[in-house]
Each structure stands twice: as C-alpha cells, then as structure tokens.
C-alpha cells in the first residue's frame, strides 16, 4: 500500500489527495500503530485462508461474548472455506426468534446459514448494563471505521501495558497507548494460549491478534479479493485500450502536426 500511495502522490492531482490523508490524520493524537505486512495488502493481496479460519475461532471464542458482527451472515463463511455442513452447525448454535406460529406466538428456532451473526446483547442498553456502562461496538465494519484500521487493531489488541507512573487509570478502565485518550474500558482480551486453535498453531497473543484482524478485515471487506482481481484485469485492459487509442490519435493527427 505504501508504494501505491507514493506513486499516487507523485501525480499532479494527488497533491489534493494527500489532503484527504491529512484530514483522516486530524483525529489522531495517539501513538501511530506499527505497520504490518498483511496477506491482504498490496495490489495482489488475498486473505490467508488458514488465518481467516483461526481468526474466526478467536472472534467466536473471545470477541463474540461482547461484540456483534451483525452485517455478516453465517452463509458468508462458505466464501472463506467453511463447508456447508460446518456453516449449518455454526449457525445452529444460536437461537433466534422464529416467525409467529399458528397461534401467533413467537418461539425461538435454531439459526440457519441465511441468518446474520447474532449479536451478544439484545440492545445497546443491555450491552451497557452488562459492561459497566461501556458499549462494545459491533465489529462488522471496524477495520474500515478506523484510520489505518488493520494496523490499528493489531496494535490495540497487543498494546495493553502498565501505565506510566503519572497516568491515572480509573476503576474499570485500562491503559492502552494506541486507544484515543489512552484509557479503554475493554480489558485485555487476548492471552497466551487463551484459546486452542483447531489447527494446533501456537496461540500467542500476536498470532491471535493477526488472525482475528485478518478475519475482521474480511468481515468489513468481503469483496476485497474479487475487487483486486477484477481491478488487475480492468487496468490491463485499459492500458491496452489507451495504448491503441494513442496510436490512432497519432495517425489521425499526422496531417495536422
């Protein structure tokens, strides 16, 4: 992404584009997150399938207790390598309100692949009541809703540390230099071997953070792979077309020059 940005900035018009970047920076009085090379970054980036699957396990085992993923449907998991039977089993673990039955009563039914991920709380008030007044945001778009989203989230998840001596940390808050204001209500969520991966990968904090960020990036941008694939084809086509148009232009203008 960095090379691409540099190339863009080189353009005349991109002088204005940098203004867009600085506007995004305007909100950040916080420590800049370190850059990480993600499987999905770059012109040809794709999601690492094993990381996606592990990331789902982290989301399900750690995040899902408090954070929803309401824009993603269980069926979407089939796009990243889960089998239909696996998806049916995952969906069936939740129960959701069914259509009114013959008596007009609404009963619960097991989830099906067409359902969206069930949020952990019925509404914002319930979420706040269960979390000491804090509201754990939905994660469906989190990677796109923060500047430099993937790097920021990895830094946040791995950035919990002892506060500096002069920093007062009130009860129920936690110190994290990457969070705006450095005080975050969410307690450190990831621990060494906090979960057990089904593929037996060692579950370090860094590993879990990278996996879950990969999964959440997919959740926010499920079109990313199709987009980049199509983009490469479109650019190649346009380069060829534009080259031909240039030749035609030269020939038509030959008698004027």
């Amino acid at each position, binding site marked *: 992404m960095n090379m691409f940005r540099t190339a863009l900035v080189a353009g005349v018009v991109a002088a*204005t584009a940098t203004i867009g970047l600085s506007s995004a920076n305007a909100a950040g009085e916080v420590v800049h997150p370190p850059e990480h090379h993600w499987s999905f970054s770059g012109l040809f980036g794709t999601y690492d399938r094993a990381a996606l699957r592990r990331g789902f396990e982290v989301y399900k085992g750690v995040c899902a207790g408090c954070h929803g993923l309401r824009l993603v449907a269980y069926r979407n998991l089939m796009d990243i390598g889960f089998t239909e039977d696996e998806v049916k089993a995952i969906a069936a673990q939740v129960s959701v309100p069914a259509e009114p039955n013959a008596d007009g009563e609404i009963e619960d039914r097991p989830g099906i692949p067409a359902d969206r991920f069930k949020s952990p709380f019925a509404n914002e008030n319930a979420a706040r009541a269960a979390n000491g007044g804090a509201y754990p945001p939905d994660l469906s778009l989190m990677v796109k809703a923060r500047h430099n989203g993937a790097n920021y989230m990895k830094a946040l998840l791995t950035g919990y540390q002892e506060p500096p001596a002069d920093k007062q940390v009130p009860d129920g808050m936690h110190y994290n230099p990457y969070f705006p204001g450095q005080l975050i209500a969410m307690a450190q969520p990831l621990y060494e071997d906090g979960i057990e991966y089904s593929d037996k990968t060692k579950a370090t904090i860094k590993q879990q953070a990278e996996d879950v960020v990969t999964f959440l990036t997919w959740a926010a941008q499920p079109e990313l792979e199709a987009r980049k694939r199509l983009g490469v084809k479109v650019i190649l086509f346009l380069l060829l077309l*534009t080259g031909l148009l240039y030749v035609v232009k030269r020939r038509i203008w030959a008698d*004027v020059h």
Partner: protein
Amino acid sequence: MAQFQKPGWLDNGLVRWVDHRLPIFTFVSHELYEYPTPRNLNYWWNFGSLAGIILVIMIVTGITLAMHYTPHTAMAFDSVERIMRDVNFGWLIRYIHMNGASMFFIIVYIHIFRGLYFGSYKAPREILWILGVVILLLMMATAFMGYVLPWGQMSFWGATVITNLFSAIPLVGDYIVTLLWGGFAVDNPTLARFFSLHYLMPFVIVGVVVMHIWALHVHGSNNPIGIDTKGEQDVIPFHPYYTVKDLFGLGVFLIFFSLFIFFAPDYLGHPDNYIEANPLSTPAHIVPEWYFLPFYAILRAVPANFVGEWATAWMGFIFIEAKLAGVLAMFGSIAVLFVLPWLDRSPVRSSRFRPMYKWFFWIFLIDCIVLGYVGAKPAEGVYIAIGRVATIWYFAHFLVIIPLLAKFEKTKDLPKSISEPVLGGGGGAASAAASKPMEKA
C-alpha cells in the same frame, strides 16, 4: 490540411427522411463534423469532455444505487452495506459512485484552473464562464447531499454543520434551516428530502451543461494562445481530431480512476463514515470531503473568537455575527468567480503573454492548496493564522491583483494567428519528419 466535410451518411435515404422532419443528423454533423476547433488545443482542454463523461457515469451508477438504497434513518446505513455485500457487483457500483464524486471535482477544478490560466472567461465567453460557475455550485450542493445519504457519522455531522450555516442569514435564517431539516434537527425528513434533491439536481446540472456547451459552440473554444481563430488554417473539425484525442484522454483518466476504485476505494473518504450516524456522539473533528476543504478553511478563517468553538458550539449560535461573516466569505469565494470577467479587464487572454499574471496564477493555485490543507487541520494554533493569510490572499487575488495587473502589466506581443506559431519555424520540420513513417505504412 484538415477537411471540413459533411459525413457520408447524411446522404442515406432514411437519414434524409428523418432529418427533413427532425434535423438531428444535420445537428450532429454541424456540431461535430463541421464544428471548427482551434488546431492548437493542448491536453488541458480534455477536461471539459471528461467532466461530461463523469457526469454520465455518476448518473448511471446513481440511478442503479437508488434501486437498492433506502432513504430512512433506521435503514439507510444498512441498505448501503447490503449493496456492498449482497447486491451483485454492488460494491463496484458504489465505489465508482463514491470515488466518482472526487474524480468529478478533480476534473472540474482542473477545468476551472485551465480557464483561469488561459483567460477562457473573457469576452465573448463571459456567459459560458458564468454557466460553469453555476454548474460548480450545483455540483457542490449535489455532492454535499449525496454524502449525507449513507447516514454515517460524517454524513450526519457534516449535514448538521453545513445546514446550520444558513441560520447565520439575518431574519429568515432559522426559517430556512427548519425548512432544510423538515423539523428541528437533522433527522428522517432531512434524509428523505436530501435523497429526493440528490436525485433531482444532476438532471438540473445536465440542463446547465447543455447551455454551457451551447454557449461554447457559439464562438468555439478558447486556445492556449488565447487569440481568436482567423480562418480555415487555424481550425480543424472537432471530429475526428478531438473525438480521438478526448478518447485517449478518457483512457488515461479511467486508469487513474480505476486505481482508486479497485485498490484504494476508501482512500479519499473518512473512516468515521463507516460508523452509523449517532446524534448523541459528536466526532472529535468534523471534516468535510477533500473537495470542500478550501472553502471550509475560508469559512473558519474569518471570525476571531468563533474558530475555536466551531466543533463544540455548532448549535449554540453563540457568535452569530462572526458566523455570518464566515458564511459570507465562503459564499463570496464563489461569488467572486461570477464577476471575474469584469474584474480582469486585460485584453490579453492567455498567460503565455502575461508574464506577471502567470506568476500570480501559480501563487493563487498554491494558495488554494494551502487553504485545502488548513481546512483539513483542526482550527487551532498556527493553522488559524495560515488560514487567514491564505483567505486574504484568495480575495486579494481577484479583487486587487487582477484589476491592477490589467492596468499595469506589460504584456508580450501576440502572434498574428494560431497557424503562424504552429506551422512556423521548427514545428514544420518536426511534422515533416513525423509524417514520413506514415507514408511507408
């Protein structure tokens, strides 16, 4: 020498039958095949047709998005995400539309600065220029309302800040704001009317564009030398020369556009707009889209005590007079463009023959970029000072420098005709060399 010929298909029987009743084919022939265009237009003249094409792209993608979008505060955000996730190629259509707005402004700003550099606003093209400024205003209104539709945080708070500006108007201000909102805050009626107007305005733009082109075709394009065409040797027919040149330019532009659509679709946007609108939570910094930043800087530059309070006191109407001054400055920065043809009385159009104006043009361009930079920054510290100096320079450029230059600048001698500098000297030798391989082919 280029030929001005009516196209052969005008002799076709069916074409003649239709043309006798509705002379649409004569029209096409007249405005494309026989339309005389200066032979020396450079690539800066590509941006007019590009603007027309991106307008069509925006209308087509916009109509498609409207088929799937729901203008209701409870559903708008999710309906956009449904487009992104579940509608076939919805992500593509939306990213084209979203980035297309930025592209439209990039193109139009280049088009405007082209006009400023080569003096395209001068007689007899004053009305052509004024129609262009009208298009810019309509574009700004359309883009602003379009940005509200996804109902993200910046949508909501941008709408709140900008609609509140109208409350600065004496006497009727509050009434106008209530009318814009359809209530007493930005809410569902606001979203619904913005959607309706956002769908309407592009067609109004099309109407003004037609008049813009109509006015253009009366006297034809200005050119890099800025002198009038003096006969057949100065002009070439629009088709095929400029149709193919515009198509080549379109190809280059589409590559640039595609880099954003496919590889950096959110680069020009603000991350906060992927958070659903929340009237109870104000973002730390409310920033408009990049293409409004220079005007935003001018808005904030004027009042002394108002600037710091902007983000927090948006609904306080605390500094009414200061706010009115800011709003007047912002609208004044566009209004001054309307009278530019009468501020610049210099008879010479092109900067190529205006050694001093040329320098001030580049300084003015830098000034606008500085304003854009300041507009993106929080209104504090050194940015306030820079913003004020840049704002003063903006107005001084039009109201002081340009009128004075017209009086005192010593312009260079103008060439006798377009064909003289084009064909004379080295140009002829180069064209002879270039045409040789063509003869072999």
